[in-house]
C-alpha cells in the first residue's frame, strides 16, 4: 500500500512538472489517407491529457502541445498512430487497418467482434445514413439501404413501419426484426388493435421504435440471420437491428452540436384519387337520378333536387345551365340556402382537403469526456403538423449516457432515454369510419370541399353534403359527416411516455477474463382517446362496437420489461497461431403488461364532455394483466487459426412461463459457423479482402404469453351478467416450442484499393412446429386452435455492392447497390389443412397461407376464362364471375427488392440520392373496387368505340365492349361446349353496378380479381444536397464545423402500376399486407437542415 502511495506521489510530481515546464505552442497539421486525400473528423489528442480536437473538412487541425508531448491520431477504419509533437507543422498519413477496415461490429449481447471473424451476414449503416432524412421513426430511413430488409413505410400520419428481414418466417406470429439498443433488446410494440393489424378499422398508432432518437444513433448494424442472433434466443429469430448510441468522446472543445431541421410537404397527387368531372352525385336510380318530385321554393312547380343521401357519382351529366337544389340549399345560414345552383363539377375536389405539412426537428447534443469518464447528452424536440387538418405530433426525447472507469478493472456504464410523445388527429384506417375511404370510394363530384370547410367553420355544426332526407327536414348524415366535423370534433389523441434505463458494470478479473452485469428497464405508458361528438353519424364505436351516435373511448397500457444479464468473457491464447474466446452467460426477462379499455355506452349525456363517466349507461371496461418470464443460459466458443480461419459455436437453453410445465417449458438450441479469410493466403495486388462464410443455426421460440382461453365477460342484461366461451381452443399442456432452422453461405470481397467491394449471401430458413392460432371450421365452436403446426421455408439471395468510381482530392463518387430476392413457400400446415386463412378483408378478398404457394395468397372471386385464357363476357356484356371464393388471385410477396444509392462530392458540396425499388407482389384495392362502382374515377367516363359517351344508355349508343370473349351465338353443338368469339356485346355503363340496372364498372359487377394490382414501384426515396462551410468561415469563432442541407423525400414515384395510391400504403405494420381501403396519400417533403458543432 505504501508503495502504491509512493507511486501516485511520483506520478503527481511528474504531472506537476509537466504542467509547469511544458512549453505549449500551436502545432498545425493535415491528416490524410495513404493516397493523400484529407480525412475530416480525425480525433487528435495530446497523449495523457484531455486536450483534443477533430480535423476539419480539409483534414486540418490546430492544437496546443509541447515539443516533448505525443499526439495520438484515431479514426474509424484507420490504424491508430502516435506522432511526437516535435515539429509545429505535421503531415500525418493514416494507414488503412485491414482489421479496422472491416471494422469492429457489435454482435449479439453487445459483444464486439472483428467483422472478418463473423460467419454470418451483417450490414452496417452509420449515423449519417440513419439521419439522411428527417423522420420520427428511424426505421423509415432504412428502406432501400439494406439488402434483405423489407421496410414498408405506410403513409399513415405517425404510422407504423413494417420491418422484416429475409422474408416471412412465422405464419401468424411476429415477423418483425428485434430492436437492440447497446446490446439489450427493447420493445418495438405496435399498439394497433388486431382489427387494424388485419386491415380493419381504427387508427395506426405507430410502433415504439420511434421512441429512439434518430439523432442519438451512432450506427446501426443489421444482423440478418438466426445464426447471428442465436444468443438472443427466440426474440431475435427474425434478425436484429443493433443500435449503437452516441457515446462520449475525449474532447476538449465545448463538445456541443446543434441540428435544426424544417420540413414542409404536400401530398403526391399520383397517390390520391382523381375525379371525373362530367357527372355528379346520384345514380342508384339510373342516369337521370334527380328527384323531381318536390317543390322546394313553394312556387307551385316541382324543382330539381340532387339525392343528397346517395354517396356516389353516377348521377346526371353536368350542365351549367341546369339549376339544381344541392346540399347547400338546405343548410341554414349557407349563402346558397334555399337556392338552386348550377350543376357543375366542384372546383375543389377532396385533394384540396389536404394541407401543407410542416415539421421542425431541433436537436442539441453535449458530448465529452476525459481519460476516466465520458458522457453524451442529447435533447430532441420534434413538432409535426400533418397534411390532414387538425393533426399534430409533438415529441421530446432526452437521452444520455455516462461511463466511468474505477481504476483499471471496473467500469460503470449507464444510459437513459426518456421520450414523451403526444399525437392529435391521426388518420383513420380501414373501411368503416374512415374519411379517406369516403374521398376514395363514396363521394359526389359536385361537392366542393372548400364550401364544406366554410360550412363547418361558420358555426361548428355537422351540416354536410350527405344529408339523409333534407326535404323532410332530416339534415343528419346518411353515411358521412362533414369531413371537417370529423377532423375537428371526432379526433383522436394519444400519448406515450417511455423510459429506458440501462446500467452495466464490467469487471476485469484478470487480463483475459471479464465479467459483466447488466440491468435494463424499459417502461412505457400509453394513453389513447377516441371521441365521437354528439351530432355525428352513428356507427360502430366503443368496446362493444355497437352503433353509437356519440361516445368516448379510453385505452391505457402500462408495460414494463426488465432484463438482467450476466456475461463472462474469457480470452485464451493457446499459441501464436490459435486463439480461443469463450463466453458464458445467463439472462432473465421479466415483463408485465396491464391494459385498460373503457368506453361510454349509448352515447354521451353532456355534449363535449369526454369522460367515461359521461355515459348514458355503464359498460364494464376490458382489463388485462399479463406477466411473463423467460430465462436463458448460453455459451459461445470461438476459435481462430492465425486469424484466417474462424470457428464459432453457441448453445442456449431457455425456460419460459408461456409454455406449460407439464409440457416442455425448457428447450435447447444451438448454432455453428465458420469464416475463412482467403485473402490472407492469396496475397494479391488487386484483392484487398476476401472471405467465405457458412453457418447453421437453430432457434427455439415460445408463444406469446397470456393466451390461454378465458371466458369473456360480454355485458349484463337486467341483473344477469353473461360471458362467452373463448373463440380460441388451447391445449396448453400439448404446446411445445417452435424451431427455426437456418443456414447461410456468404462471400465478401473488396478490390482495387477497396474501391469496389461486395457482400453476397445465400440463405435458407425453415420454421417448423410453429405455434399459432390455426383457423378451423367454426362448426367446431371455435375460430381457431393454438397449436404447433405448419412449416414455412424462405430461401434467398442478398447482394450488396459498394463502389467508388471516382476518387480524387476534390471529387468523389460513391455508389451502393442493395438487391435481394426472397423465395418463400408454405410447406405444410396442420391436420389435413391445405390452406390457412390469415385475414378476411371486407368485400371480397382473403389473405391466406396456402401449401405450395408463397406466404400471402390473395383469394377471392375470379373471372371465367376460356381454354385460351381469355375472359368470358356474359350476355349482358359484363364479365362472368367464378363465384367460388378460393381462387388464387394474387400473392403479396415481392419478386425482388433493390436500392441504389449515389453520392457525389465536390469539395465542400455533396449530393446524394436513393432510388428504392420493389418488383412484384400484389395488392387488392378496395379503393379502386368501390371508386369505380361509385363512378368517381375517370375510367368510368369518356367515350366508347362509337365515339359516344360511355355513360349514355345502351339505347343511346353508350356502354362499352369489355375486352374478352363471348359465346358464339350462331354456333350450335351437341356436346354442350360453346364456341367463343371476340366479344361484341356492349355492356351498360350508365349507372353504378350496385344498382342492379347493368353497370359494368366496380366491384359489384366484377370479380375481386379485377382489383388486384401489381404492387411494384420505383421511387426516388431521398435526395440530399449538403454544403459544409469551409474552415475559413468560422476560423476565428468558437464554431468548429457547420453545414447546411436541403433534403427531399418521396419526391417522385418514378414508376408504379397501382392507380391513385402508393403501393406501400396500408393500415398497419404486421403480417397482413396487400389490402388497401381508404389509404392516405404519400406526402412529398422538402427539408432544410442546419448543423453546427461547437
Amino acid at each position, binding site marked *: 500500500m505504501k508503495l502504491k502511495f509512493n507511486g501516485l506521489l511520483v506520478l503527481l510530481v511528474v504531472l506537476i512538472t509537466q504542467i509547469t515546464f511544458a512549453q505549449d505552442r500551436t502545432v498545425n497539421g493535415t491528416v490524410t489517407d495513404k493516397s493523400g486525400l484529407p480525412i475530416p473528423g480525425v480525433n487528435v489528442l495530446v497523449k495523457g491529457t484531455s486536450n483534443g480536437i477533430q480535423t476539419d473538412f480539409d483534414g486540418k487541425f490546430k492544437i496546443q502541445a509541447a515539443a516533448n508531448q505525443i499526439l495520438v491520431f484515431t479514426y474509424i477504419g484507420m490504424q491508430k498512430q502516435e506522432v511526437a509533437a516535435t515539429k509545429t507543422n505535421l503531415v500525418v498519413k493514416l494507414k488503412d487497418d485491414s482489421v479496422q477496415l472491416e471494422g469492429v461490429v457489435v454482435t449479439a449481447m453487445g459483444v464486439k467482434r472483428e467483422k472478418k471473424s463473423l460467419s454470418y451476414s451483417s450490414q452496417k449503416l452509420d449515423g449519417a445514413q440513419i439521419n439522411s432524412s428527417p423522420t420520427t421513426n428511424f426505421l423509415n430511413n432504412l428502406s432501400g439501404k439494406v439488402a434483405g430488409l423489407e421496410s414498408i413505410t405506410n403513409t399513415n400520419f405517425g404510422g407504423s413501419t413494417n420491418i422484416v428481414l429475409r422474408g416471412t418466417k412465422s405464419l401468424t406470429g411476429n415477423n418483425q426484426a428485434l430492436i437492440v439498443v447497446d446490446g439489450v433488446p427493447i420493445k418495438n410494440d405496435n399498439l394497433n388493435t388486431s382489427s387494424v393489424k388485419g386491415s380493419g378499422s381504427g387508427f395506426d398508432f405507430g410502433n415504439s421504435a420511434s421512441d429512439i432518437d434518430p439523432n442519438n444513433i451512432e450506427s446501426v448494424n443489421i444482423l440478418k440471420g438466426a445464426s447471428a442472433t442465436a444468443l438472443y434466443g427466440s426474440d431475435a429469430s427474425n434478425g436484429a437491428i443493433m443500435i449503437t448510441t452516441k457515446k462520449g468522446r475525449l474532447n476538449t472543445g465545448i463538445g456541443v452540436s446543434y441540428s435544426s431541421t424544417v420540413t414542409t410537404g404536400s401530398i403526391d397527387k399520383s397517390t390520391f384519387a382523381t375525379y371525373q368531372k362530367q357527372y355528379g352525385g346520384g345514380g342508384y336510380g339510373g342516369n337521370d337520378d334527380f328527384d323531381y318530385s318536390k317543390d322546394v321554393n313553394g312556387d307551385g312547380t316541382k324543382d330539381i333536387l340532387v339525392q343528397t343521401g346517395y354517396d356516389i357519382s353516377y348521377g346526371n351529366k353536368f350542365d351549367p345551365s341546369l339549376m339544381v337544389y344541392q346540399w347547400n340549399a338546405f343548410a341554414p345560414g349557407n349563402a346558397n340556402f334555399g337556392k338552386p345552383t348550377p350543376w357543375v363539377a366542384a372546383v375543389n375536389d377532396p385533394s384540396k382537403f389536404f394541407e401543407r405539412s410542416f415539421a421542425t426537428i431541433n436537436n442539441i447534443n453535449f458530448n465529452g469526456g476525459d481519460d476516466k469518464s465520458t458522457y453524451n447528452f442529447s435533447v430532441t424536440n420534434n413538432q409535426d403538423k400533418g397534411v390532414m387538418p387538425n393533426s399534430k405530433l409533438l415529441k421530446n426525447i432526452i437521452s444520455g449516457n455516462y461511463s466511468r472507469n474505477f481504476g483499471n478493472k471496473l467500469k460503470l456504464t449507464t444510459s437513459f432515454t426518456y421520450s414523451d410523445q403526444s399525437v392529435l388527429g391521426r388518420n383513420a384506417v380501414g373501411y368503416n369510419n374512415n374519411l379517406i375511404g369516403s374521398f376514395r370510394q363514396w363521394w359526389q363530384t359536385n361537392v366542393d370541399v372548400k364550401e364544406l370547410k366554410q360550412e363547418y367553420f361558420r358555426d361548428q355544426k355537422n351540416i354536410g353534403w350527405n344529408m339523409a332526407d333534407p326535404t323532410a327536414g332530416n339534415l343528419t348524415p346518411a*353515411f358521412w359527416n362533414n369531413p371537417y366535423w370529423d377532423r375537428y370534433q371526432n379526433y383522436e389523441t394519444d400519448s406515450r411516455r417511455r423510459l429506458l434505463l440501462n446500467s452495466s458494470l464490467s469487471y476485469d478479473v484478470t487480463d483475459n477474463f471479464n465479467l459483466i452485469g447488466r440491468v435494463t428497464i424499459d417502461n412505457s405508458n400509453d394513453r389513447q382517446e377516441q371521441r365521437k361528438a354528439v351530432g355525428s353519424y352513428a356507427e360502430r364505436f366503443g368496446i362493444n362496437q355497437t352503433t353509437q*351516435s356519440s361516445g368516448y373511448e379510453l385505452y391505457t397500457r402500462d408495460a414494463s420489461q426488465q432484463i438482467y444479464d450476466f456475461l463472462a468473457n474469457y480470452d485464451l491464447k493457446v499459441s501464436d497461431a490459435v486463439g480461443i474466446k469463450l463466453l458464458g452467460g445467463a439472462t432473465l426477462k421479466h415483463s408485465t403488461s396491464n391494459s385498460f379499455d373503457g368506453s361510454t355506452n349509448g352515447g354521451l349525456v353532456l355534449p363535449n364532455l369526454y369522460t367515461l363517466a359521461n355515459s348514458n349507461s355503464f359498460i364494464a371496461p376490458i382489463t388485462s394483466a399479463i406477466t411473463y418470464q423467460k430465462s436463458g*443460459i448460453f455459451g459461445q466458443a470461438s476459435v481462430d487459426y492465425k486469424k484466417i480461419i474462424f470457428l464459432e459455436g453457441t448453445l442456449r437453453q431457455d425456460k419460459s412461463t408461456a409454455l406449460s410445465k407439464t409440457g416442455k417449458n425448457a428447450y435447447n438450441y444451438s448454432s455453428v459457423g465458420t469464416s475463412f479469410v482467403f485473402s490472407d493466403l492469396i496475397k494479391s495486388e488487386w484483392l484487398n479482402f476476401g472471405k467465405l462464410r457458412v453457418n447453421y443455426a437453430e432457434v427455439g421460440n415460445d408463444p406469446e404469453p397470456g393466451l390461454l382461453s378465458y371466458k369473456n365477460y360480454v355485458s349484463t342484461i337486467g341483473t*344477469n351478467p353473461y360471458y362467452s366461451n373463448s373463440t380460441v381452443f388451447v391445449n396448453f399442456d400439448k404446446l411445445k416450442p417452435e424451431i427455426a432452422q437456418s443456414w447461410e453461405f456468404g462471400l465478401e470481397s473488396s478490390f482495387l484499393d477497396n474501391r469496389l467491394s461486395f457482400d453476397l449471401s445465400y440463405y435458407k430458413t425453415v420454421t417448423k412446429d410453429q405455434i399459432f392460432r390455426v383457423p378451423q371450421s367454426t*362448426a*367446431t365452436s371455435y375460430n381457431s386452435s393454438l397449436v404447433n403446426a405448419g412449416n414455412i421455408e424462405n430461401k434467398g439471395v442478398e447482394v450488396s455492392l459498394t463502389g467508388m468510381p471516382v476518387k480524387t482530392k476534390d471529387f468523389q463518387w460513391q455508389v451502393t447497390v442493395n438487391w435481394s430476392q426472397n423465395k418463400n413457400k408454405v410447406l405444410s400446415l396442420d391436420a389435413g389443412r*391445405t390452406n390457412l386463412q390469415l385475414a378476411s378483408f371486407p368485400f371480397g378478398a382473403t389473405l391466406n397461407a396456402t401449401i405450395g404457394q408463397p406466404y400471402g395468397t390473395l383469394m377471392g372471386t375470379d373471372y371465367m376464362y376460356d381454354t385460351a385464357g381469355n375472359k368470358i363476357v356474359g350476355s349482358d356484356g359484363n364479365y362472368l364471375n367464378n363465384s367460388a371464393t378460393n381462387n388464387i388471385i394474387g400473392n403479396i410477396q415481392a419478386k425482388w427488392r433493390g436500392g441504389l444509392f449515389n453520392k457525389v462530392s465536390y469539395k465542400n458540396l455533396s449530393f446524394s440520392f436513393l432510388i428504392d425499388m420493389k418488383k412484384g407482389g400484389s395488392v387488392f384495392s378496395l379503393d379502386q373496387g368501390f371508386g369505380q362502382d361509385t363512378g368517381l374515377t375517370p375510367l368510368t367516363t369518356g367515350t366508347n368505340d362509337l365515339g359516344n359517351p360511355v355513360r349514355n344508355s345502351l339505347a343511346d349508343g353508350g356502354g362499352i365492349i369489355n375486352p374478352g370473349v363471348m359465346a358464339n351465338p350462331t354456333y350450335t353443338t351437341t356436346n354442350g361446349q360453346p364456341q367463343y368469339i371476340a366479344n361484341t356485346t356492349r355492356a351498360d355503363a350508365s349507372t353504378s353496378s350496385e344498382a342492379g340496372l347493368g353497370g359494368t364498372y366496380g366491384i359489384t359487377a366484377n370479380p375481386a380479381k379485377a382489383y388486384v394490382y401489381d404492387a411494384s414501384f420505383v421511387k426516388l426515396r431521398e435526395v440530399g444536397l449538403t454544403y459544409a462551410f469551409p474552415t475559413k468561415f468560422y476560423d476565428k469563432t468558437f464554431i468548429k464545423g457547420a453545414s447546411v442541407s436541403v433534403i427531399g423525400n418521396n419526391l417522385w414515384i418514378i414508376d408504379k402500376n397501382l392507380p391513385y395510391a402508393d403501393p406501400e400504403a396500408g393500415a398497419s405494420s404486421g403480417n397482413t399486407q396487400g389490402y388497401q381501403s381508404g389509404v392516405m396519400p404519400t406526402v412529398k417533403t422538402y427539408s432544410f437542415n442546419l448543423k453546427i458543432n461547437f
Partner: protein
Amino acid sequence: MKKIIVSAALLISLVSCVNESNDYNNDHDKAYDVPAKVLITNAEKELADQVITPSQGSNIFRFFSQYWTQTQYIDESRYILLKRTVSDVFWDNLMRDVLGNLEATKKAVNVEVRSAATSQADFDIQQKNKIAIVEILEIYTYQVLVDTFGDVPYSESLDPNIVLPKYDDAAVIYPKLIIRLDAAIANLNVSGLSFPQGEIIYNGNTAKWKLFANSLKVKLGINLSDVNSALAKTTIESAVLSGVITSNTDNAKFPYVSISPNWNPIYNNLFSRNDYVPANTIVTDMNTMNDPRRSAYFTFKPGTTTYVGGIYGAANSYGNFSHISAPIQAATTPGILFESTEVNFLLAEAAARGYSVGNTDEYYYNQAITKSFESWGLSSIDAETYLADPKVTYSSSLSGSSYKEKIGHQAWIALFNRGFESWNTWRRLDFPVLIAPASATADAQGKVPVRMTYPVAEQTINTASWQAASTAIGGDKLTTKIFWDKN
C-alpha cells in the same frame, strides 16, 4: 477458478427464477371458470340476436320473403351474399356463438356441485332439467342451420379436436334431432327447478320449455311431411298430445332492454341508417287485403296517408316510401323465437295434410290469424272482421285454391317479423308466389333463393369437407333445394 465457480453459481440461481406455475401464464384480469347461468344467458342472447336481426350482413330472410328491401346498397336484395360474406356471419353466429356456448353451458352444468340446502334428488332433477333446456336450444339451432344450408357438420361438429369436421346428410340429421328432442322432453321434470337465474327466455320455467320443445317437434315434423310422412305424422301427433304453444302468453321471447348492446337488434340497425324500407311485394298485398296489421308493420309514406313499399330489388329513395313501424323497431321490443301464431299455422297445415292434431285445419288457421292480430295489439273483433273477408275466409275459394295457398298466403302476412320461419313456410308450401327481381344476381338463376351458399371460410379452411358436401347436395348454389323441399 474460485471466481469462475462463484459466477457460475450466480448464473444458475438467476435462471431458477422463472415461475413454474402454469397459472402464471393466465391473464389475471380474466375469468377462466364461470357458472353455467352466465353462459346460457349468452347463448340465448346470441341465438335471439341472430334470429331477430335485420342486418343485411347476417340475416337476409326478410329479403328472401320480400318483406323488406334495401334503399341504396341493394346487394342482398339481389341475392348477392358474397360481398358482405353473409353466410359466414350467419354460420359463425349459430355454430360458434350459439352452439359453442350451449356446449360450454353443458360442461359447466356437469361440474356443478350440490349445495347443502338442496337434496340429492332435487339436485339431480334440476341438473337434468338444465341439460334438457340446453338440448332443446341446440336442436332449435341445428334446425335453422340444416334448413338454411342442407348438409352441415353434425356428427363431428362441436369438437375442438376435429378441426375440419365432415358434413352429415341433412336427411340423416333430421331424425336424430327428433330423437334428441324426445329424450330432452322425457328428461324435463315440470315440477322441478332448472336455472334459477340466467335462463331469461322463460326464466327457467320447465313447463313452458316443454311446450317449446313440443312445438319444435311440430316444426321439425312438418318439414318432413313431403319426404317422410310417417315420421312427420308420429312426430307431430305425439307433440300435440304432450302440449304445444297455442297461446300468446306462452310465446318464447328474449327480453331486450333499452341500452346497447342489449337492445333489440332491429333498433340497432335502423335508428341511425336509412338502409331499409318495406318492400312493395308485401305492402301491395296487404293493401289489397286491406289488412289492419299494416299500421303495426309500417308507417305511412311520408306526407301521405297511404302505405307504399319500395320496389323490391331496386334502389329506393328512403324518403319516398313507408318505413318500418315504430313498435317493430323499438329498442325494448322483445325478440320472438317461437309464437302461437306460427304453431297454429303449422297445426293447420298438419291437419290439412291429414294428421290428427285435435282440431281442423280451419280451426287452427283462424286461431293463427287471431293470435297474430292479438300479438300485434289488435282486437279479436278486428280479427273476426278480417276472417270474414272472403279473401281470407278459409272455406272461401277466394282465399286460395288449396290449403297450401290459403295457409301460405296468410302465414306469409302474419310472419312479417319472422323472416326465417316465413322463408321455410314458403319453401314448403310454395305460396305465395314470389318472383325474383330483374336485378337478381346471375347465381340465383332467376329464382328466389331456396338455400344459402356455404360460408367463404368453409371453402378456404374446411375445403375437402365443403367439396364433398357441395357434391352431395347437388352443388353449393342458391338454387339447390334442401332435402325436404320437394316441389
